[in-house]
C-alpha cells in the first residue's frame, strides 16, 4: 500500500516537474531538467527563489567569462 502511494507521489511529482520543465523551456530559462530539479529541490527546502535566480545568473555570467578567458589563453 505504501509502495503504491509512494509511486503515485513520485508520479505526481514527476508530472509537476515535467510541466515546470515545459514552462521553463517555453520561458527560455536555459535550465536543463536536472538543474531544474535541483532548483525545485532547493526551493522546496526553503531557498528564496529570487536569490536562487540571482545566484544562477551570476554563476552563468562568471562561467561564461571564465570560458572566454580560457579560450583566449588557449589561442595565445
Amino acid at each position, binding site marked *: 500500500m505504501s509502495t503504491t502511494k509512494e509511486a503515485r*507521489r*513520485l508520479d*505526481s*511529482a514527476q*508530472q*509537476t*516537474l515535467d*510541466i*515546470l520543465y*515545459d*514552462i*521553463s*523551456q*517555453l*520561458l*527560455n*530559462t*536555459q*535550465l*536543463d531538467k*536536472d*538543474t531544474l530539479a*535541483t*532548483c*525545485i*529541490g*532547493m*526551493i*522546496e*527546502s*526553503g*531557498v*528564496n*527563489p*529570487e*536569490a*536562487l*535566480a*540571482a*545566484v*544562477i*545568473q*551570476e*554563476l*552563468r*555570467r*562568471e*562561467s561564461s*567569462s*571564465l570560458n*572566454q*578567458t580560457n579560450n*583566449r589563453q588557449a589561442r595565445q
Partner: protein
Amino acid sequence: MIPSSSSGNSYGRPSSSASLRPPSSASRRPGSSASQRPSSALHARPPSSASMRPSSRLSQRAKSRSRLTPVCQTLVAQITGMDNSALHAENFNTAVEFAVQNLEATSLVNLKGSVGVDMSTMDKQIRGHVEKAKIQLRKSLGQALETAYRQLKAGMAHTHDLDEDIKMAHMPDHLQLLIKLAMPPDEASLIYADKYLDRVSNPPLPTPELTWKDILADEPFEGEHWNYDHSDSGSSPSLSPLDSDDLQFPDDSSSSADDLQDAPSPIEPETRTAPDASSRRQRFEHRQMLEELQKQQYWHKGRLDIPVNFNRPFDVGDPSTFGPSIHQALARTHDKEAALNLDASEREWYIEEVHAVREVLFALQGRKNILLDWNTHKYLPSERSPKLVHLSLSSQHSILSSLGLAATVVRQLREFAAFILSQSRSTSQIAQTLQPHDHKPRVTRTLEAFADALSREIRVFDAWCAAREDDICRAQGGVSEEEVVISLLATETAVMDQFNRPFVALREVVGKITNVDQNQETEARCLLSVPAAVITVRLLDSLLDSAQRHTEQEDTPTAEVLKRVFTTTVEPVWGMTHKWLKDGMGLGLTQGQGDELEEEFFIEGTGLTIGMMGMGMGLLDPEFWSEGYVLREGADDVLQEAKTVPAFFKHAASLVLGAGKANGLLRALGMATSLTDQVALGTWRSFTELLTTPIPHGHQTEGQTALEKIQLALSPDTLSRLVYDELFPHCKATGSILARVLVEECGLRTHLSTIEGFYLMRRGDVMSHFQDLIFAKMDNQQGWADFHALNTVFSDVIEMNSLGATKWMEPSLMRLSYRGGKEKERSIARSIKAIDGLTAEYAIPFPLTYIFPPKVLQIYSEIFVFLLQIRRAKTVLEKILVRGDGAKHFQSGIKVFYSMRSRLSWFINALLNFLTTYVINTQVASFHSALTTAASLDEMIDLHSSHLEKLQGRCLLQPSTSALHRAILSVLDIAINFSARFAAFAGDTSMHDISRLSISVGHRSKRLKRQRGNVIGFSQSFRSLVSLDSDSDEAEDDGDSPSFSLGATSMTSGEDDNFLSRVEAMSNELNGLVRFVRRGVESLAGGVGEAAPTFGVLAFTLEDWDS
C-alpha cells in the same frame, strides 16, 4: 570567478546581481582567482583589491559547511560544468561558497515564513508573458505557455497531499524562479512550443497494462458478440434518437462503430497494433449502451416488439389477445389458405400503445413517424405501421385516420405559413435591393402577420404535443407524481377538443382567401396574383366572420384562437392607419418620394395630378383634396366585387381618410404639426390593447358573461364601433384644427362673402352700379361683352364704391369674360340668352380652392348670369314708361300695352323677389350658421356643396328643372321683345337712354323697321306671330306727350291692329308660360323634397297670376 553575496539590506529581494555583490567579497577572494579572471567584472574592480585580500579567509569559510552545501555544489556543477577536481577546485569552491552564502541568508528568512509571492501574482506574470508572445506574433509560444500553465494549475487543483515532493504551496516560488530566469524567446523555445502543442493535441498513449490485454486480446473479436452490424447503426433512420442532436449519445454511436472497425488513425498508427485496455473497456461500455438503446427502438421491427402468440384464443379477460385473434379470424375469413400458409408474425408486429401515442405526437408536429404517411397532401395511416394488440385493425385505422386529418390540417397550415414567410423573406431581400420601386406582387404585411399568428398557434400546439410526450417520458421514468393514462383514443379526443376545430377554422379561412381548393402551394401562389388590398380585406373579413360564427356557436376555444389570430393580423393595417394619421397625405408633387402608401392599405394615392413628365400641380390642384387620395377601389377585371375596405373599418375609413388629408394639408401649410401630432397620436393604442379594453358603458350590463363580451368584441358592428370610437377623437381634433386654420388664417369668410356679394349679387350697391353700366352699353348697342371693357367697368365700379373705405374685394381677383361670340353679343337686343355667354371667374387662393373649385365657381357663375338676365329684363321693362294722355283715341291699345307691361313686371318682380329673398338670402343665412359648426374641411366642402346645390335647385338651374328654366327665359325674352317691339313701334331709339326719365315716341327709322323684322321669337308660336306682322307700317309720334306717348296720329288703324294683335299674342304666350311655370313650381312645392316649402312660396305668389 567572483561570486557575489547578498548585501545585508536586500534579503528579501536581490534586485540585481550587482547589488548582490558585497564590497567585502573582494576580500574573500583568493588572490590567484583574480589573476585568472579577465572578465568584465574584474575590470570594474580595482586591481589592488585582489592583492589586499588575505588568502586565509578561504580556508576558514570553506570549512563552515552548510546544509545547502551539497545542493549548491550540485547546482554549481550543473550550471558551470565545473567539478571539484583539482583543475577547477578553487573556482568551484568559490562558486559554491558564493551560492551557499547567498542562499543561506535568504533561505533562513524564507523558512521563517516571510511573505513570498502568491499564485495570483504568478497568474499575472504568466499572463503577461502570454500576451507578450501574442503581441510579438508568437502565437504558438503564447498558446503553449498558456496551456502548460493551465495544466500546472489543473494539477495543483488535484493535489492536496502535504507529503508531495513538490508542495503546491511552493509552486509560486518555483514559477517565480522560472520567471526570473526567463529570457527572450529564441528559435529553440519556439520549436519547443510547437512540439509541446503537438504533444498536447496528440497525447501519447498511456503505458499499456497487461491485465485487460490478456483477457480481451483474442477471442471476443472473433465471436458473435463482436459481429456488430455496422450498417444497422450507420444507416439508422432519422428516427433514431442516436442521430438526434438533442440527445447526448451521438458520439457514442459513431465512436463505437469506429472503434470496432479499428479504423487507422493518421496521427497514431500504432493504435492498430496496440489497442489499450482502457479504451477497449470504454468501447465495450459504449457498445453495451448502444445495444441497450437499440433494444428500446420500438420503431424497428424486432427490437421492442410485443411478443404475440397468434395461436392464443381470444380471452375476454386479456385485451392483448384481441388484436391478434381478430386478425387471425379476418385472415381466415378472407383467405383461409393464405392465412394458414403465412406466418402472421412475419408480417405483423405489435408495439405498445404508449409508443404509438408518441408516434402520433410526432405526426402531429409534422415529423416523420411510423404510423402516418404524408401522401398526396394528406396524412394517411401507414400500411406498414405496427399494430396494437388490444385494437382491431379497423378501430386502429379509424383512430389513426381521425388523427391523420388533424395532422393534415396542421401540416397544411404549417406549410402555408412557411411559404408565406419564405416568400416574404425572398421578396424583401431581393426585390427591395434590386428594384426598390418595382411593384411586383409580393406578400403583404397582413399576410405576414397572419402567417406569424398561424405559426404562433402551431407552436402552441407543438408545445402541447411536447408536453404530452414529456408526460409520457416522466411516467416511464417514474418521476411523474400523477398517474398518467396514455392512450390513442385519449390523445385523439384531446387533439380534437382543443386544437382541431381552431385549425380547421383557420384552414377554411386560408381556403376562402385563396378561392382555390387544391394543394397548399398552389393556394399560396394564387395569393400573390391577387391585389394586395383585396387579399387583406378578404383575409380580415373571413377571420372576423369565422370568429363571429364560432362565437355564436359557443365554440369558445376556437373563437379565442381566431380572435388572437385576427388581432395579430389586423395590426399591420392598424399600424398603417396610425402612420397615415401621423404623417398625413403626401403633397403629390413628385412621384415615389416616400409618401406612397402600402398596396394593402385601404387608402391610396391616385397619382391624379402627376401629369406629363412626372410633374403636376400636386397639392395646389383644386381636385387634389378630393381626388389625390381616395379610398381604394379594388374592383378589377378579375374580381369585380372585390372589397378593399375591411368590414369593421367601413364606417371609420372615410373619417381616417379625411383626417390624414387634413394632417397632410396642415403640414403643407406649415401649421400646427406638433399640435396635430400630440392630438392625433398622444393616446394611440395597438389593436390588441383596443380589444382588451372593457366594453364601454352603455353596452355592458351587469349580468354580462365573458362569452357575451367576446361576442360583442368579435362582431363586425361592435368592432366597427370600437374602431370608430377610437379614431374619432383623433380625426375630429385634426379636422377642427384645419377648419380653424382655414377660417382664421386663410380668410374663408372674407372670400365667401366676396363670392356671395358678387355672384349672388348680395352687394346690391356695387352690383347695381355695375349692371347699370353694362345694361347701358347693351341699350346703346355698344360692345358690352368686351373682355377689357367688362373688367375695366367692374374695376372702376369697385374703385368708385370703395372711396374712403377698404375695398370690398380685390377686382384683380375677378375675371369677367364673354364666350358667346360677336353675333351672340349683339343679340342682346332680341334675346336675354345673349347673357349666357358671360362667365365670372374668381381667383380664390389655396387652400380655399378645395372648397371653391372651378366647377363650383361655374355654378355660381350660372346663378349670377340668371340673376343678371332677370335684372336685365326688369330694367328693360322699367324703362318703358307709358303716359298716354295724348293718345285718347288709342285707349284700347294703351290698355293692352299697359296690361302686358304690368303682367311682365309682376312676374319678373315676383321671380326676382323670390330668388333674392326666399332662395339666396335664406340659404346663405342657413349656410353661414352651419359653417360655424363645421369641424373639418370635408364637412365644409359638403356643407358648401349642399348649399350650392340647394341654390342651384331653387334657382331652377338644375337639369331636372331645365324646362321651367327655359320657360322663365322665354318670359324674359318676351319682356325684351316686348320692349324691342315697343321701341320699334314708338320709333325712338333714345328711349333706352337711362339718363332720360321719359320716352317719347317718334318716327321709326328704316333701321328699326329692319330690326323689328329681324326679331327672333322666343318660342315657335310667337315667331309665327312675328312673321305675320313683318309688313307692319311705321308708327308716328303724336308729339303731345312730354315723355311718352304712342304716335297714334301717325299710326294707321292697320298698324295698330298688328301691334295690338302681337301684344295680344305675347300676352297669351306669357300667360301660357307663366301658367306652365306655376304648374311646375306647384308640383315642386307639392313634392317631398327639402325644397318644397321654398317653392311653395313661389307657387303661392304665382297663384295671383290669374286674379
